[in-house]
């Protein structure tokens, strides 16, 4: 038991808060790199979506829910869409991937499956984003509608960029996961 928390009541809470803080910082940095670096060189991958994909395919925990909500919220604000458009899209996409990974895909996930999943995820995300934006517009909540022709127009370029960044993001996702696990292990050992 730590001196700060002799009864161990807040021990779990501290571990969870730190984990979410690490994820939040990672998401902010990924968004900043997406906006600051890739948009400057006129490429438009979606690093947050790729980060979500890797965490959704992790069968051991449900951290992808937090990543979907936080990434979606940031993207909603950053792309000036109606709040909830990206949050809902990422949540549904993350859940579908997680259910696929835990119930359907029996074999170890390899890079071929990853490439197909990335393409399918990007297509589904675009459709969901357009659908939620259209719904918000029809309900009178949003002032404008996302043009699906633009999403179609950019799909191939975005897909190629995402596929090229799969491996670096896989390394990053693995690194963040190991940081979180090491931190949780150290906290458990302290208590």
């Amino acid at each position, binding site marked *: 038991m730590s001196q700060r928390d002799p009864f161990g009541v807040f021990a779990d809470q501290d571990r969870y808060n730190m984990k979410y803080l690490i994820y939040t910082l990672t998401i902010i940095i990924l968004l900043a790199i997406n906006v*600051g670096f*890739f948009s400057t060189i006129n490429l438009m991958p979606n690093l947050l979506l790729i980060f979500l994909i890797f965490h959704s395919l992790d069968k051991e925990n449900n951290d992808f829910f937090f990543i979907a909500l936080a990434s979606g919220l940031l993207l909603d604000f*950053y792309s000036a869409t109606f*709040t909830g458009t990206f949050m809902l899209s990422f949540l549904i996409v993350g859940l579908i991937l997680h259910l696929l990974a835990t119930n359907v895909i029996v074999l170890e996930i390899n890079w071929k499956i990853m490439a197909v999943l990335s393409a399918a995820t990007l297509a589904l995300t675009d459709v969901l984003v357009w659908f939620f934006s259209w719904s918000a517009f029809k309900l009178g909540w949003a002032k404008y509608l996302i043009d699906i022709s633009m999403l179609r127009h950019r799909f191939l370029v975005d897909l190629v960029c995402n596929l090229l960044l799969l491996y670096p993001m896989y390394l990053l996702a693995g690194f963040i996961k190991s940081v979180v696990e090491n931190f949780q292990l150290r906290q458990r050992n302290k208590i």
Partner: protein
Amino acid sequence: MRFIYTKTFAIFSLCLVIISIFVVLQVKGWIGPIKNAVLQSPRPVVYVVKHVTLPVKNFFTTLYQLRKITKENVALSSKVIKLQQDLVGYEQEKKENEALRNELGFARSNEMSLISCSVLAQNSFEISDAVVLNCGTEHGVIEGQAVISQGHLIGKVIYANRNTSTVLLVTSSRFSTDARLSKISTDAVVRGSFGSGLILDQLSQNIPVEKGWLVVTAGINEKIPKNIIIGEVGDVVSTPNDLFKKTTLLSPIDFNNLEFVFVVK
């Protein structure tokens, strides 16, 4: 075990509740402070990354386009000389205009009142062709106002919160505004096109149009003042059999890297 009885479903339901709360906040217009705070958080990192990336990008772009830059330099030098000659004539006309106004007692037309704003969220993902500014209703921003950058129209305000506002860019396919060819004072309409350009539309077929002519706002919309430069006429994209003549419109603004803009009051 059924999915609805699992921990995953419970967390999914909780997430849906959280999203609903955010949607309600957005609909009620109370999301401004959260949006402002969230948009400020990545700014330091974006600033650092951009200031490292831009010089490197400019270096390689310059090398790659050296020949084109040299040709542009020569063309711009001759254009500057011609403009300087024109300026001398305009200065004379301006003095005469002032003297005549004073003689006839005409009131001076007001110069534009501007609100300076920073772009919090740029059009980085090219999804909505809209940007978010750090000015809102408490700074005097209202919906429908024009937004300019480097003297050119870049969009109009479509949504104004207390601390932030959303601007629809001129390149959006949902944007349109009245316009005028400054050379011959003919009215037309400017529309955005697929996030990649501008189209000058509804010109009569028998009106002569030349490349390079300036297109400005016509001032028909009361919230968008007249004589704000939109761009220069490019290539004609319609055929003689079409009802109206259409041309492309070239704007020197980089809509993906806007940093500081002005809202016209």
